[in-house]
């Protein structure tokens, strides 16, 4: 599966079934990989090392993307939706979405600016004031096609643009999934447990059970990080920069990376000439906190790909940064 196919699949937090099945089908073709699904819906894959007396490394990436859920319908037939994950209501308006397994098309709308009062123009509309339009004419008709609890995902095509840039929805999750699949299909010098986690956007819940089922020597979390390098931001609040390589994280709101593992990772990236940067900001909790601190303590480091417009229908990454994340992961596993 390539990155385009992965991004165009729909797997909103809590509804990762189709991606789970696709991953299982894919890894069944890889040599020496055993896969199973745990009770949180994580896909847990194990691959043996190519050399004897190897270490055991846990590598994770989350599958799920942000999206919406249908909560009710108005009598005129418009659906009320609530966000799943951290979504900015300001960027939801006028976006195309698909709803449910039947992939019903819909458009998110609100009162047009022409009719908004001065006050309304100044503030962002909340999710209570926007709606999804599926072309229904009544509450019954709307809920018949899109029952309460249906998931909604952004409807965006994947695209490549500029010099090696890619854009699509769910890139912040699927780049990690893509790299984890590529890792499983290569030969590595350690025993690897690769876990594709669920419910990252709902509080890293899939990741919170992972450490109970394996006791690795250390863990690598593949993630995406904020990239605030457009516009007038001063350098010290940019967090990361596009094209400068995989971002190594010393701390986020959920976990402080093990000092030694963090320093060793930086040293290894330097000596192997892998483009890398140090993340310059305190990102929200990643799966690292959940993995480090729910069972036996683990040494964890997070490797992130810089991502512009995170949690939007058009996330942007650079191919070379995605590749650097994979290169550094393999290098760590083979050498640490």
């Amino acid at each position, binding site marked *: 599966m390539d990155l385009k196919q992965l991004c165009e699949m729909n797997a909103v937090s809590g509804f990762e079934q189709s991606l789970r099945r696709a991953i299982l089908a894919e890894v069944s073709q890889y040599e020496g990989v055993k896969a199973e699904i745990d009770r949180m819906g994580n896909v847990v894959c194990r691959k043996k090392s190519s050399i004897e007396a190897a270490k055991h490394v846990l590598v994770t990436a989350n599958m799920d993307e942000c999206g919406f859920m249908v909560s009710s319908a108005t009598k005129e037939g418009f659906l009320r939706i609530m966000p799943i994950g951290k979504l900015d209501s300001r960027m939801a308006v006028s976006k195309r979405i698909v709803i449910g397994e039947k992939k019903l098309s819909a458009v998110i709308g609100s009162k047009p600016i022409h009719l908004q009062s001065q006050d309304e123009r100044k503030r962002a509309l909340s999710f209570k004031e926007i709606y999804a339009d599926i072309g229904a004419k009544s509450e019954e008709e709307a809920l018949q096609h899109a029952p309460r609890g249906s998931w909604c995902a952004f409807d965006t095509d994947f695209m490549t643009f500029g010099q090696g840039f890619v854009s699509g929805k769910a890139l912040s999750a699927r780049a990690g999934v893509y790299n984890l699949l590529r890792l499983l299909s290569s030969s590595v010098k350690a025993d690897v447990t690769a876990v594709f986690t669920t419910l990252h956007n709902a509080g890293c819940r899939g990741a919170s059970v992972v450490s109970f089922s394996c006791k690795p020597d250390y863990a690598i979390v593949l993630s995406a990080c904020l990239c605030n390098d457009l516009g007038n931001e001063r350098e010290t609040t940019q967090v990361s920069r596009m094209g400068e390589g995989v971002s190594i994280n010393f701390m986020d709101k959920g976990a402080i990376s093990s000092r030694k593992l963090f320093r060793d990772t930086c040293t290894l990236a330097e000596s192997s000439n892998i483009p890398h940067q140090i993340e310059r900001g305190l990102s929200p909790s990643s799966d690292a906190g959940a993995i480090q601190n729910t069972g036996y*303590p*683990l040494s964890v480091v997070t490797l992130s790909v810089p991502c512009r417009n995170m949690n939007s229908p058009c996330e942007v990454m650079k191919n070379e940064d995605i590749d650097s994340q994979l290169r550094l992961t393999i290098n760590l596993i083979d050498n640490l």
Partner: protein
Amino acid sequence: MYDLLKKITSAVGPTGEEGKVAEAILSEVAPFVDEHTIDAMGNLICVKKGKNPDGKKIMLSSHMDHIGFIVMDCEKEGYLRVACVGGIHVEQAKNRHVIFPNGVEGVISAEVTEKKPAFTDLYIDIGAESREEAMRLVKLGDIAVFAPDCYRIGENRVASPAMDDRCACALQARFLQTMGEKEDTVIAVFSTQEEVGCRGARAAAFAYEPDMGIAIDVTANGDTPGDKFPAITLGKGIAVKVMDRGSISNPALREDLCRCAEENNIPYQREILPFGGTDASAMQLARGGIPVCTLSLPCRNVHSPVEVIDMRDMDSGLRLLRCFIK
């Protein structure tokens, strides 16, 4: 006690990088315990086995970490931009002497602004005149703390930026040195990362599965001009915590501790804190849950560079632990 306190408060150990504190403590307690280990979170865990093989496993936890400033970036003129690790009020961070674990010293200041200063206005001057020079001295991700400065005030009180929670570490260390043989097994955890959510203690409690947990931490005071709550007074004895926002102490364990203090004429106070939490909150919910209580050392100006405790409260805490643990 003062010398032990001075040694442990002088070690530089920010949240996330507590190694030097663990070293200082281990040098004091190693000869007195049966086993000691440092786990993946950096916790220093010392075990003193009890004579009774069916005895209780009692976990004690005091945290080694100290709130700090993590280097996020560096301006081209050599000033370090920071974020806080743990709960720091910006006002406490203006114009202070700070130090990094590698020995580099600096001064942290806030940009002069019309509005209230925020964390993004803070910067540390380490004497470098360019980014290149600064990055030779420290690295992104290094964490600075208020510089150690331990001194006596009068006969009984001691001030230091790190009383939270090194005075408890000193108490716990002194307990290990003087406890002698007991029936029950004591698992003394010197924990990490308490200031960001009791992470070290959570891991230790999961790994060792104790029967009960006693956290030792500092608490606020109500005996200075203007501060009447909580109703805690320095020098009136160790505080037995009824509740804070992190945990409600197990009532039976709490009363056992109070009764033990009364029966042995050990001064104590009951404490209720309408905010905050200790390692007890993490120990209480480990695995299937265990009874917990916190013993608190009354402390003034918590999370400032001048935290003040009374050594008489430390002594009463030590006596209580010695009498309570059989």
